[in-house]
């Protein structure tokens, strides 16, 4: 009897050990084993998506970055200080930052890289504060920017990627080792200053359609689909795939050639803004992945004034405004078109599905107040040319409008005063004045009040018809654990980790 008890105890103990040993989780793969494949559907949804832009995201960095509320936050620069009555900005570079070619990012090397970026014409156009920089020098681990006059938005302007050198070399977590028209391979940069990336290799593939990209994702050939349109989100998401929404600083805008006499009157433009049911568009077309837009200033900008009224959906007032602007509804219809107060043609780039659908809803709403907008669909390249040459009456564009008024400034500051992107002919002296204050002021209170005033100016004299702020979605295989500390998960790709098998089971 005693022997039987001992034997039973031993058996139980062995069984227990075997069971617990069997349940032990597999060790997580080491960084050297981890690869990821990202698919980018070429079914274009905006102008910015593309292989090159995506690669830049992973390979190049900037001195500063944009915080979610528009305030600049450190990146390659740890901190900065204003000197000499705000005409000198001293940046303290992070230590141990290296370029992919092994050079340390400091001193003359850093100066050369930064100088090439801040003197780039496109960057200067996008960030006017760069034009105020007269000199860049290095003092050890510090970069010193001397300005012609105070420019409060210089730290924000230093968010430009440092990729404009003759032979650009990045400091980012990855470097490209192979690239074709439709594919690219990146490998982890071991000396990345924030630590070696946990994912060793990144493969990027371009797909013709979302369907093909999603099918690859669902088959397990991809780990990420970079851009999932709103229609597909609920059907892509499942227990193995997470879809993370990413608010963007872009908004859908029906731009108007204000040089055209029909659009000169603010009344007309206000009527346009009152005619559109933005909430319905966000719900119906964007599937809730976005929010109605009240104007050109990003609503999450830290100085944004929520008390300034937004455009409500008010077609009656819109019609009344058009009447008072002299655009009355004709009594008789024409043979070639519906009776309309106003007719014009809107440029639309080809194959931009979401833009087209938003535009069609806007067309319908405008039609309801007697505005007949017809589309002219052209290839993207032609679209860009026509717009830049101002050969349009209206154009439907996805415009980057945040997170700071610098973007607003870039698009809507007087073309006479500033060679930005204002090809639309918009002019407003009051706005000009406020832009000046915003560019120069370093005082938060002054910036807030100036921003508030600018909002009201744009409400009374809207530069265009602002429809909705956009959002995108990234479909990511749940085997990756994505840190939640960033606006866009792609920004933290380098520190994604592999979920343990047990973690996946719990998540299910």
């Amino acid at each position, binding site marked *: 009897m005693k022997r039987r008890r001992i034997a039973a105890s031993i058996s139980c103990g062995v069984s227990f050990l075997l069971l617990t040993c069997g349940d032990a989780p597999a060790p997580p793969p080491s960084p050297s084993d981890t690869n990821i494949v990202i698919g980018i559907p070429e079914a274009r949804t905006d102008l910015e998506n593309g292989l090159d832009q995506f690669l830049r995201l992973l390979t190049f960095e900037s001195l500063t970055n944009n915080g979610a509320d528009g305030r600049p936050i450190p990146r390659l620069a740890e901190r900065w200080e204003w000197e000499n009555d705000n005409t000198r900005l001293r940046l303290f570079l992070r230590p141990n930052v290296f370029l992919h070619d092994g050079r340390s990012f400091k001193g003359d090397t850093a100066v050369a890289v930064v100088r090439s970026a801040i003197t780039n014409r496109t960057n200067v156009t996008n960030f006017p504060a760069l034009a105020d920089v007269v000199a860049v020098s290095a003092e050890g681990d510090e970069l010193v920017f001397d300005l012609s006059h105070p420019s409060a938005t210089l730290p924000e302007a230093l968010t430009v990627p440092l990729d404009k050198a003759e032979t650009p070399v990045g400091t980012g977590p990855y470097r490209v080792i192979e690239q074709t028209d439709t594919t690219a391979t990146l490998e982890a940069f071991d000396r990345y200053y924030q630590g070696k990336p946990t994912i060793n290799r990144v493969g990027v593939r371009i797909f013709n359609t979302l369907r093909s990209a999603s099918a690859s994702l669902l*088959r397990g050939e991809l780990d990420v689909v970079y851009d999932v349109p709103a229609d597909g989100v609920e059907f892509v998401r499942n227990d193995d795939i997470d879809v993370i929404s990413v608010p963007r600083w872009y908004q859908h805008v029906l731009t108007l050639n204000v040089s055209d006499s029909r659009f000169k009157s603010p009344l007309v433009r206000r009527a346009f803004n009152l005619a559109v049911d933005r909430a319905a568009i966000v719900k119906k077309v964007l599937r809730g992945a976005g929010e109605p837009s009240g104007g050109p200033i990003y609503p999450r900008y830290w100085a944004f004034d929520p008390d300034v009224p937004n455009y409500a959906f008010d077609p009656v007032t819109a019609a009344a405004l058009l009447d008072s602007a002299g655009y009355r509804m004709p009594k008789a219809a024409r043979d070639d078109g*519906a009776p309309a107060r106003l007719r014009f043609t809107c440029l639309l780039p080809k194959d931009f599905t979401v833009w087209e659908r938003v535009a*069609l809803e806007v067309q319908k709403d405008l039609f309801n107040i007697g505005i007949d907008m017809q589309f002219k669909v052209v290839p993207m390249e032609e679209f860009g040319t026509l717009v830049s040459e101002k050969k349009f009456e209206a154009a439907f564009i996805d415009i980057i409008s945040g997170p700071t008024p610098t973007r607003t400034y870039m698009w809507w500051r007087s073309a006479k005063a500033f060679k930005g992107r204002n090809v639309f002919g918009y002019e407003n002296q009051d706005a000009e004045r406020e832009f000046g204050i915003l560019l120069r002021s370093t005082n938060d209170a002054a910036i807030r009040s100036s921003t508030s005033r600018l909002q009201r100016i744009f409400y009374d004299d809207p530069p265009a018809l602002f429809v909705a702020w956009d959002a995108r979605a990234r479909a990511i295989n749940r085997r990756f654990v994505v840190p939640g500390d960033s606006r866009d998960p792609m920004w933290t790709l380098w520190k994604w980790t592999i979920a343990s098998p047990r973690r996946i089971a719990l998540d299910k």
Partner: protein
Amino acid sequence: MDDRLATQDRSGQMRRISTRFALMMAAAAVVPLLAYGAVSIISVGEGAEQAVIQGNQNVATRAGGQIERYVLDSIRILNAVAQDLRRTDLKPWQQERILLNFASQFGEYKKLILLDENGKTIASSGAEASDIQLPGADSVTLENALISRFTIDDDLLPAAVVAIQLPQGSKGGWLVGQLRLEELWRTVNSIHVGETGYALVITDEGYPLAHGNAQLRPMIARRDKQDNHPVFAALHAAGRDSKKPVSAQYASGGKDLLGVGVKLASLNWVLIIEQPTNEAFAISTRLRQQLIVSITVALFAMLLVGSLWGRRFIEPILRLTRGTRALAAGQLDTRVAIASSDELGQLGTAFNTMADRLVELQEDVRKKERHAMFGRIAIGLVHDLSHPIQNMGNSCKLILKMWDDEEYRESFRRTIERELAQIKRVLDDLRNVARPTPVERFPIDVNKTVADLVDSMMTTAANAGITMAIELAPEEIFIEGDLFALNRIYRNLITNAVQATPPRGRILVRTLKQPDDVVIEVADTGCGIPADRLDSIFDDFVTTKRRGLGLGLAISKKVVEQMGGTIAVTSQVGVGSTFSVRFPLTAARPSQIAAM
């Protein structure tokens, strides 16, 4: 030891009776219950399962109807638009406006275009003229519309091209729409059966169009053919026109599933609802389990009740049995307490009466035995003492006359001494019975003492006409004993043998050495001892002779036992008797041999 065995025996019997009783009750009550339960388990389980299957089929039928209506309504809406467009007085911009409004209002139509009879686009709901192709040869006609095969579009939604021909009278042409059944997915996703049941829609070619299980939805993007799905295959086998739902149970993805399916005849689709069987049949499984548990509990309860009742019923009988055994064991004070007024109570009363009577009888028997014994003792004493006393009296009478005769005086002295010695022996025997004389123990040579004693009694045997022989063990044999007592024992045994053996009989005295003992046997060819008296032959005051106290063997036995030995007898009437005395050997040796 005997009590423990008796208790065990009693409890074993009790178990057997109680067990039989319990089993009898169980058989009478539970067997029908078991039979009913088995039938119930089977029929209830099957019935519940059938109800589940029927329920799922109803869900499938309703959901299938809902899906069919959704698709057909979408097509009917297009028909309604076509009706609007057939109005000949509509200008192109009006037609376009209709298309725009319709496309905006009904999200199912991604794009609508109006083609003239030459295929040129007249109006479009899109921003640009579209290149939607008319449905081809593989299209089907439904609600007056041509519909292409449904496929999965780039947005991963089921889509098809629907075209309605406008009559020539309205300038002809086609109204063509890209129908995208986004709501189909939502409808399928919303179909739930239980917690884990879901639905899926498969085209007649076997391609999945919608799947309610997000984990399995990738098959849509992969275009995994499902034509070998058991339900799909069963529906196909049932024939195109069959409207009856089918069901099947099968394993898929490591799970056992119940699948029911219906045909959506107008669309040539199949709607299948799948539910894991462990959920689908949970109720019937639970019912079965409950029935099994209930029946098992009832069975054990019946067994318990039967066992308890049986014990209660049997207990009086067992008491009587115990009482009877105790009586048989001599515990005449045993009585049973059976407090019931039935036959068992009467039996208990009778038992107690019998026990009382037994006690009385035993007392009577004892009295009689005492009388008999006293009588025997008296007679023995009279016999053993009267002769010496008589002889002494006669001699005393003669001595008065013959006092001068010196020879007679010597004879008188010897007679008186002899008879007094005899009287003394009788009195010694009596005293030995009451208080045995302690024995001395010295190493004794058995062969020598036996030989000496036999030798001294040869004359006695010869005078009785009996041949007495002696066989001694060849080895020296020593025991620890009292020489005097041993001689008395041997003399007693030989004397009894002489008295029991008729003339020309034989007496054999022998010694046998065994590993640890020595056996001294006295065997005769006498009359033998009846078997019923053998057990008491060594008792006090028991004799087979007509006279005597009957103390010889009793005293011999006591003395033998005092010396650590045993005495036994075997006898056969008419053949003879053998008395065997056994003593343990000793390694001790006498310092000088004790001599008679």
